[in-house]
């Protein structure tokens, strides 16, 4: 569709532009939610998100390099040659959402433990914005043509003309847009759940479960089989199973959301004064 744009004579990948736009939207939304609840300061949420962003970048890249081992490790080349090629991979692209999610979680946790911020409450505040960020990323995927769907010649099928990643001239299922839509839906649902604080569940656990199920199903409709498979399931489906299990554990043992009633907010504001 539109893999690159020219900004002041410099070619910029649209995927990256959308990813950073999504990150900005996530920051704004989380700060607004934090302000609305008034339990954790907006500044702490913003700084925590910066740490999470750093973790996300490192995690997404690290997982991408790890899963590239079996595909891009040349046994007929020396270790030094392989490492040199990996430096090219490191610089030239590749981010994996699940790696980013884990990295972001660790980054946020690092901030909270280092500066003694209640981690559970802080992460719960950020959770509604995460699907929004992801939706932006998926639209970026669509513009770049990567993460494409299976061959499909029906209503809403998409044919790429000049994509560096997708097979050009073949009608495909726009799976990126379907996932983006699903993420927008999750964003709306989780924002409503957050604002109404009902039902009293761990939002992070619920999000992990919902996203894992959605991703597991959508993976069957993906056409990019280069990412590798094991026992009939893709790498992301195996990770989805693990993420779902983590979500269930969080739902089962996670604390109930903190009391965000009007009385609690007033108490908090009084203690700040």
């Amino acid at each position, binding site marked *: 569709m539109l893999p690159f744009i020219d900004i002041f004579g410099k070619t*910029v*990948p649209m*995927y*990256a*532009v959308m*990813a*950073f736009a999504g990150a900005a939207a996530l920051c704004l939304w989380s700060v607004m939610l934090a302000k609305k609840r008034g339990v954790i300061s907006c500044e702490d949420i913003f*700084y925590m998100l*910066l*740490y999470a*962003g*750093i973790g996300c*970048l490192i995690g997404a890249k690290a997982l*991408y390099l790890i899963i*590239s081992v079996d*595909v*891009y490790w*040349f046994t007929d*080349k020396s270790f030094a*040659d392989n490492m*040199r*090629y990996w430096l*090219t*991979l*490191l*610089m*030239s*692209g*590749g*981010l*994996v959402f699940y790696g980013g999610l884990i990295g972001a979680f660790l980054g946020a946790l690092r*901030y909270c433990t280092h*500066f003694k911020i209640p981690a559970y409450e802080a992460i719960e505040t950020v959770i509604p914005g995460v699907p929004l960020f992801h939706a932006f990323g998926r639209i*970026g*995927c669509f513009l*770049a043509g*990567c*993460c*494409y769907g299976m061959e499909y010649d029906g209503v809403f099928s998409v044919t790429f003309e000049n994509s*560096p*990643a997708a097979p050009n001239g073949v009608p495909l299922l726009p799976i990126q847009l379907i996932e983006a839509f699903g993420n927008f839906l999750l964003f709306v649902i989780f924002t409503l759940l957050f604002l109404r604080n009902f039902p009293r569940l761990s939002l992070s656990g619920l999000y992990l479960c919902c996203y894992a199920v959605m991703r597991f199903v959508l993976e069957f409709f993906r056409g*990019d089989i*280069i*990412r590798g498979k094991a026992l009939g399931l893709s790498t992301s489906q195996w990770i989805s199973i693990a993420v779902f299990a983590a979500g269930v554990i969080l739902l089962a043992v996670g604390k109930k959301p903190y009391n965000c009633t009007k009385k609690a907010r007033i108490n908090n504001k009084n203690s700040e004064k």
Partner: protein
Amino acid sequence: MPGKNLAIGSLVCGILSLVLMFFGYGALVGLILGIVAIILAVNAKKQGYTEGMQKAGLVLGIIGTILCGITFVACALCVGALGAAASSMTY
């Protein structure tokens, strides 16, 4: 004043990250320096230093990280095209 040295370090790293953005593979170093600038600025703030230097370091760090990051962020499957290039790559 506590945190002042951290703020100075943050400002320097922020400026360097912006400069390195224009030097090809230097963007990777710029990205790392941008991240360091953010961490130093946050730590300076937490130590109670909130002067302009800390804010400038934080802003430059964020801008440097975004601009350096944008040059090497792509999606996992864009690497499909790279795979073809790799098979014909000569070392």
